[in-house]
């Protein structure tokens, strides 16, 4: 299962990934027209800054997803086979329970659409749009690193 990793030493905070993300989730997929869409497509990834470094923050598709526990509409579901948290927008009621509980702040409310913004790993595409958009190669799309939990 592929995951997104970030080499933060390389991240310049240029937000190319944010733009690519918004564009990839727009209706028209072109920057000239996407900015005129009635429901403006917003990035699901955010660059945040801490102690001299930039961090791209987006959904990690947790194995024990708090957002899934909290979703009172059963719109968020963990798909074990695909290793992703899926969102059924037709069930979502915009209650923001998921936003309230995400321990990474990686799911944000979109007040206009009443549907939360969250990385979907660009669903069926081979790789997420942010990966190619990053000019420094700070975003890495690779098989999951298995960490042994010897807690």
């Amino acid at each position, binding site marked *: 299962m592929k*995951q*997104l*990793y*970030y*080499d*933060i030493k390389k991240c310049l905070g240029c937000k190319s990934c944010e733009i690519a993300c918004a564009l990839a989730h727009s209706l028209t997929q072109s920057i000239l027209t996407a900015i005129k869409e009635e429901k403006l497509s917003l990035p699901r990834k*955010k660059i*945040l*800054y*801490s102690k001299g*470094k930039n*961090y791209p*923050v987006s959904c*990690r598709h947790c194995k024990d997803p*708090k957002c899934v*526990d*909290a979703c*009172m*509409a*059963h719109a968020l579901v963990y798909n074990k086979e695909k290793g992703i948290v899926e969102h059924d927008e*037709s*069930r979502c*009621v*915009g*209650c*923001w*329970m998921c*936003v*309230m*509980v*995400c*321990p*990474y*702040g*990686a*799911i*944000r*409310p979109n*007040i206009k659409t009443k549907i939360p913004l969250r990385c979907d790993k660009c669903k069926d595409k081979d790789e997420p749009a942010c990966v190619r958009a990053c000019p420094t190669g700070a975003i*890495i799309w690779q098989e999951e*690193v298995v*960490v042994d*939990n010897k807690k």
Partner: protein
Amino acid sequence: MKKFVIIGNSAAGISAAEEIRRRDKDAAITMISSEDYTAYCRCLISYYLAKDIKEEKIVLRPQSFYKDNNIELILDKEVTRVDPKKNRIICADKKQVEYDALLIASGASPKFPDIKGVKRKGVFGFRTIKDIREIESLLTVAKAACVLGGGLVGLKAAYALKKRGLEVKVIIKSQHVLSQVLDAAAAGLVEQQLTGNAIELIKGHDAIEIIGEGDVRAVKLDSGKALESGLIIVAKGVAANMNLVRESGIALNQGILVNDMLATNIPNIYAAGDVTESLDITLNKPNVNALWPVAVEQGRIAGANIAQAGLKYDGSLGMNSIEFFGLPVVSLGVYKTDANDPSYEVLQKSDPGQKVYKKFVIKDNVLIGAILAGKIHNSGIFLRLMREKINILSVKERFFADDFGYPEIRDIVREEEKIYL
């Protein structure tokens, strides 16, 4: 083969059943519910009444779920007694079911005030699909409705009834709505949304009688005033459904008492969800947090432990996400402080023009409460700081910043970082 029985077919019961099945492929699992409807999203009944969503969207698990997971589902059957000595439960129709381990996930029911006329036709709790069906049948005749109680459930009911074209008044004993979870400033913002959408709020008053002949006609207030109303919703909190264990020897308080494994004082009987009183992380004492995410998490851990996993439960805390007419508000932990206790620190900022308000309650450098109105995008970060009881001295200056987020807490929270190289 072990035999596990779960009383309740809602948030806690379902997540427990899933977890037991994930860990134990062979055990026999029986779920019993007093309702005659398949598992549904209880929190969505107001959206359903409002016609914001279709009936199919409130189904939490379809019938096929039970078949796929080899779970025996018994609907429309009330358990009246638990008999720990004989490891069996007894139903209203005398049916008995034996178990090796039992989960009580019987939830809660609305509390009805002891006032004259409360049993009249047209007075409803707001808890079940059945309530909604009955309310629905009155919508054509009732023109006005009164909601007793200004908590989250009452306000959701008010919203739904307004949306269906009724004149709606909410009668609130406190000085502001949502007084259990919001301070006056945040509640004021919510009230603006409600009154701006023609939901009338009557604050500082209580109902003392429900007037009618057979059907309800009006509500009489403690001020003497009578409000005409063909439909009354009682939303004055809930009480744990514990009647079935009253004489069982299971320890009770406001809910069924559990240890940090979610077991009751009887080792093979567990409890989870709204019926449970467990450690509250921010209050640091046992409390009932009757909330959906809490019920799901407790169900999962109790289910794991029924399957012998030996998982520990850290405890729950109050958390509410409130959304009316486009204004999001999140309330976490406690907001009331003891002004005489110098170990409390309160940080707050408001921008009423923008409908933004934030408040943080800190005790001994640990965040124990937060209210976020208008801007809620990083509320999960604050919840995490509370859950993990992190010393926030180094980051509290940044709490009000819009770009405050995970990177700034990653060094101080419990995390084996995997994704940032």
